[in-house]
């Protein structure tokens, strides 16, 4: 699992919910900080009271006479009143934040359909004509500074879509199409991960969101919507690999737009070489790892549907060369 032992590309620091990179997460994080600060104060105050109550300690039960005074319940009433005020304040604050973040303000800069699979993310960019269709996996791109509308559902079990620094979570539930939105206000690549236990490889159901300025995003979208370029005739290995891809098991499960491969079980590979990782964060997308992945995916990601593919080394090499051309 060589690739997994290094940080995901562009995510060298922790995807902390308290280091927001978007307006909505900023609102959530501010609420979070207030909860943490006031909550910590409550803990410290109770600890202090408890320690003060120990000032008149008895040494043993036998030499400490019983206290017969009735004591006063005034402290209980005051404590209850303070608790009620603080929790009510937080309830109102939460309700306000809920109202403010529930729906995006402004026109969405992109509409994406997210479909959870065991164990990868399918993303379809909506709104274009059919020939502009963009289908990719595990690595989203969005424009910064505008909301992005999401429709999320699942092809199998329940997952949860989560980019900690951009937004809260939305569960990805089969039979239900949840609407959600994300937004990024700084450029960068942000780590995300499935948050609802979804089976054997729940740990390897990661995704990234790359936020970029509008022009870069449009360029990326245009490139992704293009059908696969035919391998240059000079690159004989890639051309042979393309033919091998179409005639082997690959094309049964994967789509490469513009070719005869129309499989729908696995990720769309039309621009697979533009992605940084394979297997939803399992390994880095390098020629060597790609070769290993095709040869024996189950050893890199036990339980994944991608089967072992038995090909001659030469054919394997050609297919890898072909996939490298799918930029």
């Amino acid at each position, binding site marked *: 699992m060589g690739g997994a032992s290094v940080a995901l590309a562009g995510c060298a620091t922790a995807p*902390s919910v308290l280091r927001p990179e978007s307006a909505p997460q900023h609102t959530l*994080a501010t609420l979070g900080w207030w909860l943490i600060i006031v909550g910590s104060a409550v803990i410290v105050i109770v600890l202090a009271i408890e320690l003060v109550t120990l000032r008149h300690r008895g040494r043993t039960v036998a030499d400490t006479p019983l206290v017969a005074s009735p004591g006063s319940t005034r402290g209980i009433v005051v404590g209850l009143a303070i608790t009620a005020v603080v929790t009510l304040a937080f309830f109102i604050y939460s309700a306000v934040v809920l109202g403010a973040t529930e729906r995006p303000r402004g026109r969405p800069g992109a509409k994406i359909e997210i479909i959870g699979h065991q164990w990868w993310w399918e993303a379809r960019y909506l709104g274009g004509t059919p020939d502009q269709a963009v289908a990719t996996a595990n690595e989203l791109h969005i424009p910064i500074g505008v909301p992005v509308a999401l429709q999320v559902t699942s092809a199998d079990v329940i997952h949860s879509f989560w980019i900690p620094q951009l937004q*809260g979570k939305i569960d990805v539930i089969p039979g239900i199409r949840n609407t959600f939105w994300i937004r990024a206000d700084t450029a960068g690549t942000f780590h995300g991960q499935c948050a609802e236990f979804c*089976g*054997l490889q729940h740990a390897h159901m990661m995704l990234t969101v790359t936020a970029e300025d509008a022009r870069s995003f449009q360029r990326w979208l245009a490139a992704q919507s293009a059908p696969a370029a035919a391998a240059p005739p000079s690159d004989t290995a890639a051309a042979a690999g393309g033919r091998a891809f179409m005639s082997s098991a690959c094309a049964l499960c994967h789509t490469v737009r513009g070719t005869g491969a129309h499989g729908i079980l696995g990720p769309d590979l039309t621009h697979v070489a533009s992605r940084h990782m394979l297997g939803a964060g399992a390994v880095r997308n390098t020629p060597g790892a790609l070769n290993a992945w095709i040869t024996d995916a189950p050893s890199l990601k036990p339980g994944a549907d991608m089967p072992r593919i038995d090909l001659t080394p030469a054919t394997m090499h050609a297919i890898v060369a072909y996939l490298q051309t799918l930029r």
Partner: protein
Amino acid sequence: MATATTERLTERLSDLWETPHTLRGVLGTVDHKTIGKRYLVTAFLLLIAGGIEALVMRVQLQVPNNHVLSPEGFNQAFTMHGTTMILWYALPILSGFSNYLFPLVLGARDMAFPRLNAFSYWTFLFSAIFLYTGYAVGLGPDAGWFAYAPLTELRYSPGANMDYYALGVIFLTISSTAGAVNFIATMFKMRAPGMSLGRLPLFVYGTVTASFSIIFALPALSVACAFLYLDRHFGTRFFDPGAGGQALLWQHLFWIFGHPWVYIIVLPALSFMSMVIPTFARRPIVGYAWNALAVVITGILGFGVWVHHMFATGIPPLALTFFGAASMAIVLPSAVSIFVWLATLWYGRPVLTTAMLFALGFIILFVIGGVSGVVTAAVPFDWSVTDTYFVVAHIHYVLIGINVFPVIAAFYYWFPKMTGRLLNEALGKWNFWVMFIGFNLGFFPMHISGLLGMPRRIYTYPAGLGWTAPNLITSIGAYLFAVGVLLFLVNVFWSLRRGAIAGNNPWDAASLEWATTSPPPAYNFAVIPTVGSREPLWEERLGLGRLSRIDEGPPLDSDRVTLQTSTLDGFPAAVQRMPEDTVMPFLTGLAILATFYGLVTTAWWLAIAGGVLTLAAIHAWLWPVRTIREV
């Protein structure tokens, strides 16, 4: 009618109540003290099993990209850990104390339904054996303790793993329901004369509130598990969205059970602390009625917060706001309990025994768990922390803080009553500090790994996401916590042989269980005491005069009988004939076990045979025996 204790009386009572030391006696006893101790030992063994599963997980997660466990091994370990701890340890351990103590605290000779009591123990034991059979043969449940459909459906979980879960849970609910009915009936009908509801030891409020919650909450769980089993084996489609079912149906059913369950497994423990804290604060509790009401209100509010676990499922904002409000409101009764204990300490003269240290530690952990509970009740921020290690930290502060710490406190407190010997106090203090420091070292950093974006239930994680350090610290803390639990076990085994002799009332406590010998005789009290105040053993020193009669009262030695009293005021109402020992509850439990083995292996002949045997055993159990007696 009032009689003082005489040797002739105690001899006669022993003849009537003692269980012979034979195999038949072992399998047939209905003595609540034996049953209570069995519950305690069995539940503690399950705590150790669940603890080992947790330690294995912490070894796997202590460094990134670790390979100690396979993904399947990890998923079974965390599912078994959660299921064991939450369902098979947390309530049964409390039922153990309540079983042992209810009749003693109430001044009765046994529980209201002694045979049902034996039955609830045997079904608890057999359901645990059933669950662990699956794990032993490599078919341990592996979809998490809340087992969200449709991952649990046959298509995604083809092995029998989730059948062991669904059937094991149904099996356990039989036990828990029987136990709950018994606690309720015992509380309402078996109190010593004079023990009106206002004089009830606070201990009892927690267990009875939890028992009512059990009766209303558990059916949802049994139904959900039955639906799952039907989906898996009989072609129903309750949770299959592709065929008109609903994935979220499981979550609603599960959490309608699940959130009340959280209170079911903490309220009795809180109430234990309402006994321990006044004893060692050397004064009656301040705010008795506040505390009793807080417990009952928590139990009721617990039914209004289930969606609290589903804030990210896409539920409309109005519903989210409602359930957010309910989740916040439940803070209030908890706060009342905290302030009651603080006021009791404030106006008392606290003595720092080991039991008291665990109680004081519990108060702080309860507050931390309560605060992180408010964090998750703030709906928008819950979208950030739900399903992360923050929630893992929260549930462990709640469940270890408000269940395990009180349980250890209760052991230090009541062990002398059960065994006649005190646990070692010097070792006890080590025990407390190692557990307390280990716990916080282990679980506090989980808040941080959660905030750093680490989801729960991942079997490994890459380096470079900032999760490495908190995970290493968590693992070290977990190992230290395990050493603390080990110190407790050492103390128990050492003290069973060499502990100081306790005497009747080593802590100079106020409630009735301390009026009888340690350990108590089979009949508990030679004469039925009469209660005139909340603190019968303190009342004279509190200047209330001699209101209770402990050593004189009706001996009820004509037969195996105890006194029934009126529901509210505790007026003597009837003399209740108590059943003798019988192996029928044991045999019924065995027959049910056979039925469940038949269902899990889909060996229908075995399931049917087990079902028929179950009916036959119940028949034999309930068959009226004609006896002629002189009363």
